[in-house]
């Protein structure tokens, strides 16, 4: 019997594939698929009282979501903040990666490691340290006041959308570096020289050659930053105040203090779908856009 099984196994590629995949498959099923399924089903239930849930099927929670202006505006704000964070991160990370890929000759890895050094501390610690920098008595305000440039501290720095954007940008920059660097480093420098040889200026060469060829890295970076920041709730909770609150903070409340599990689940599902749609649109248009300029 064992012999039969062994010879079957040796010949069957699917059998090998599934046995190698099984640890990951089991984990994904237990930790992702089941919770996701539970969340989906909860979004079709009704919270009758504080402890009681009506398990009959309804899509009323989704209707509730779109009837509450607060939730819709928080969703829009979450997407907007994420867009700004993604854009600013790309804008700051791209030149750094460009420099390392094309101008650093030795120890490229060391440069990358040094750049990611701040990210070896915990995410929470970094969020808290921004509090020290941005707060009313923080580094920026006190030095500006001491220098006599301000009489009152700048209030928009702390507990605001700005604070959330600054902190999230810094927090996710390291994750943008890697895909950008890899795609830029793969570009054969003679392609850039060839474009210059064929009469293009530095800037034109960048638009026509470097940017389109680094597109895979740009899309990768966009997805890596956009997806997790839409759902981030630590930073807005700690630094956002009322102005910087995002949808995830509301979802957390529905599952906690407010105790409306079905509405929380519906909000989370809507967020998931929104992220999926936005992601698809972004990668599609980025691709189209660079096709046009090349």
């Amino acid at each position, binding site marked *: 019997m064992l012999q039969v099984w062994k010879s079957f196994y040796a010949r069957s590629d699917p059998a090998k594939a599934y046995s190698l995949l099984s640890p990951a498959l089991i984990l994904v099923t237990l930790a992702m698929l089941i919770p996701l399924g539970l969340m989906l089903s909860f979004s079709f239930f009704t919270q009758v009282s504080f402890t009681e849930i009506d398990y009959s099927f309804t899509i009323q929670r989704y209707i509730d979501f779109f009837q509450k202006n607060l939730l819709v505006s928080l969703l829009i704000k979450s997407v907007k903040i994420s867009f700004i964070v993604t854009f600013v991160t790309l804008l700051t990370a791209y030149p750094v990666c460009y420099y390392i890929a094309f101008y650093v000759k030795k120890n490229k890895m060391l440069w990358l490691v040094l750049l990611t050094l701040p990210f070896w501390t915990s995410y929470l610690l970094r969020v808290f340290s921004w509090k020290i920098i941005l707060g009313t008595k923080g580094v920026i305000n006190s030095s500006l006041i001491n220098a006599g440039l301000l009489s009152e501290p700048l209030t928009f720095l702390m507990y605001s959308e700005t604070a959330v954007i600054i902190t999230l940008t810094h927090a996710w920059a390291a994750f943008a570096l890697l895909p950008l660097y890899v795609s830029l480093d793969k570009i054969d420098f*003679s392609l850039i*020289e*060839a*474009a*210059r*040889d*064929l*009469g293009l200026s530095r800037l034109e060469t960048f638009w026509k*050659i470097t940017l389109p060829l680094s597109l895979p890295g740009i899309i990768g970076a966009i997805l890596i930053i956009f997806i997790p920041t839409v759902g981030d709730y630590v930073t807005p909770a700690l630094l956002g105040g009322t102005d910087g609150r995002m949808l995830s903070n509301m979802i957390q409340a529905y599952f906690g203090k407010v105790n409306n599990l079905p509405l929380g689940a519906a909000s989370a599902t809507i967020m998931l779908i929104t992220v999926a749609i936005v992601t698809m649109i972004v990668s599609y248009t980025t691709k189209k856009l660079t096709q046009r300029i090349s």
Partner: protein
Amino acid sequence: MNNSFIQINGISKHFGNVKAVDDVSFQIKEGEFFSLLGPSGCGKTTLLRLLAGFEYPTSGNLLLDGSDITALPPDKRPTNMVFQNYAIFPHINVEKNVQFGLRKLGLTNDEIIKRVKDVLSLVKLEGYEERYSSQLSGGQRQRVALARALVRQPKVLLLDEPLGALDKKLRDEMQLELRTLQKEIGITFVFVTHDQQEAISMSDRVAVMSEGKIQQMSSPNELYKNPQNIFVSDFIGETNFLKANTGSKDGEYINVNIEDLGSFKIKNNLNISENASEVICSVRPETMMIDTEKSDWDICLEGKIKQTSYLGEMTKFYVETKEIEKIITVSSQYFDNQSFQDSKCFISINLADISLLNKK
């Protein structure tokens, strides 16, 4: 015909302590097929990149068609380059690759279309307009690179070992084609290669480089028949070196005492001084004769064949003689490895085939 179309005046390029190009001066004629030949690291590619504008010289200046281009960036120079790895843009198709360099020339749409069509037929790539680099063979990529550079009608085409990545058969074909193409369009070609056979077969003139300097610059025939020094003699073709010293001069000739062989009168092309102790005689393998019997040539030595390599059109014999310490290489189109019953043979040399070189 402009004899000093490209003027290279005292050009040096240093990378840190390394003198990649070391005070080089020469001129290239208009319409010439000029090759820079040398082993890797000799500075030939750096010199080409200096001409293209990818590097700027540490000192010296470059003139092209009378105007100083030393400080011009690559996009402002009337030169175009065929890269070693072809550098075909992978994200656009062949047609767009070829069009790429035309956008900035201020041509009308009709002119662009016509030029692209003409150049693609020149390099025999009609029908490949829609292909991408990844869908082309090495030889086709090479043609795209050539078309992309030629379509701009540059004053000078720079070629950086463009045939290096092709297999032997295709390389031979492309050598002929490139040569024909250059004659047809009449553009000045500056061709970099490490392959001496390639340089010799294609070029009007060749500059042999080593350690950042030009060792010799002449026509391929001159290079082969009258090498100026040991480096050139060794690098171009194959040769046997014999140690010697000189005696007195006798007109065009000089008395030479070749080690272990005796005294001979040899033509003194390089004007080597009398009583020089360190001189080298170079004898090409194909100028010697190998036979089973003694000959009446100027020098005839009995020897033993230690090894042979059969190359089809000829055979190389590695012969040991009593007189000379080194193994002598002789090639023959007449005899092959099966011609000799035992290893005994006679090798003959004519004095006219011995060239005298200074030991540096």
